[in-house]
């Protein structure tokens, strides 16, 4: 039986992919991409979990044997920032597309070109 965290992460990835495949509005596609990112980050974090252990901050009562894996958390810290950066770039591209074409519908933008 698959864990609920894996299931949730896979569902988030699939929901994001569905939005990218089916939706016509550019902003909805970007929302789908963000949801996919969230799913990937959740998957990474839940792979590093060790049941019954606490956060990897070695304070008074928490030794090296009572902490979860720190590496996925570091990776996700990187991935979140990169996600924010790509989202900012994509949003400014969407602003420019709307100013140039007057619509955010992907099909119409494709037709207007050329």
């Amino acid at each position, binding site marked *: 039986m*698959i*864990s609920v*965290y*894996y*299931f949730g992460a*896979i*569902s988030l*990835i*699939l929901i994001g*992919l*569905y939005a990218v*495949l*089916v939706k016509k509005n550019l902003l909805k596609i970007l929302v789908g991409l963000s949801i996919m990112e969230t799913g990937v980050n959740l998957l990474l974090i*839940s*792979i*590093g*979990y*060790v*049941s*019954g252990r606490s*956060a*990897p*901050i*070695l*304070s008074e009562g928490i030794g*090296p*044997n009572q*902490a979860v*894996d*720190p*590496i996925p*958390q*570091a990776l996700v*810290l*990187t991935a*979140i*920032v*990169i996600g*924010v*950066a*790509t989202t*900012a*770039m994509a*949003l*400014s*591209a969407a*602003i*420019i597309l709307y100013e140039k074409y007057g619509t955010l519908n992907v099909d119409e933008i494709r037709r207007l070109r050329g």
Partner: protein
Amino acid sequence: MLKRALAIISLLIIGYWLAQGLAGVPFGQDKMLVGQYYLNHVREQTGAVNAVTAVVVNYRGFDTLGEVTVLFIASTGVGALLWRKKRERTAKTEGSVVLKTGAELLFPFIVLFGAYIFIHGHLTPGGGFPGGATIATAFLLLYMAFVGYEIPHRAFEKVEGVAGMGYVLVGLIGLAIGGYFLFDWIWLTWKWGAENIGRLFSAGFIPVIYTLIGIKVGTELSGIIDNMLKEEVGE
């Protein structure tokens, strides 16, 4: 309709395939190989108690340098994409009196809390990126509350560049002293702060680098907000 059905069917196949792959990865079991080494040695090798920030800044410092580069390129790219000759803020509705007073009152506290987060990156959860994002939200609050507000551009861009250069400079000093880039010279050569692990003045160069990263991320995200909120105005 057909398109949606096809998409759902193929997504279900992909989901089943992913679930099959993940069925071999047990949830909640100890799968650490390198992670256990980091947890066991983080105190004496870096002086930090927060293992995540030690991994981010110290063990995998190149990742963080690349991450800072990505954010810098994104900020530059947003500026380049939205570049116009004459751009100003065209918002017309001023925030209500409650919002304006609240923003003025909250601004120093949010900046203080952001600075707290990135200065204490080696002791508490957080670090440079959350702290910088918190500082950027303070500027976003000012942008939302006041129609005419603009960040001081020249100062912000200079501070951003100087903070990024400071990060590389700390790495280059490590190259000169220890023989490789991003060598933790404050901790491994000087042993500075070795007796007060778990207090503020410890953990080698992690607080220094996280302060620089926090300042850089804060100014960068504020710059992105500024670029996105401005519109072209006719002559």
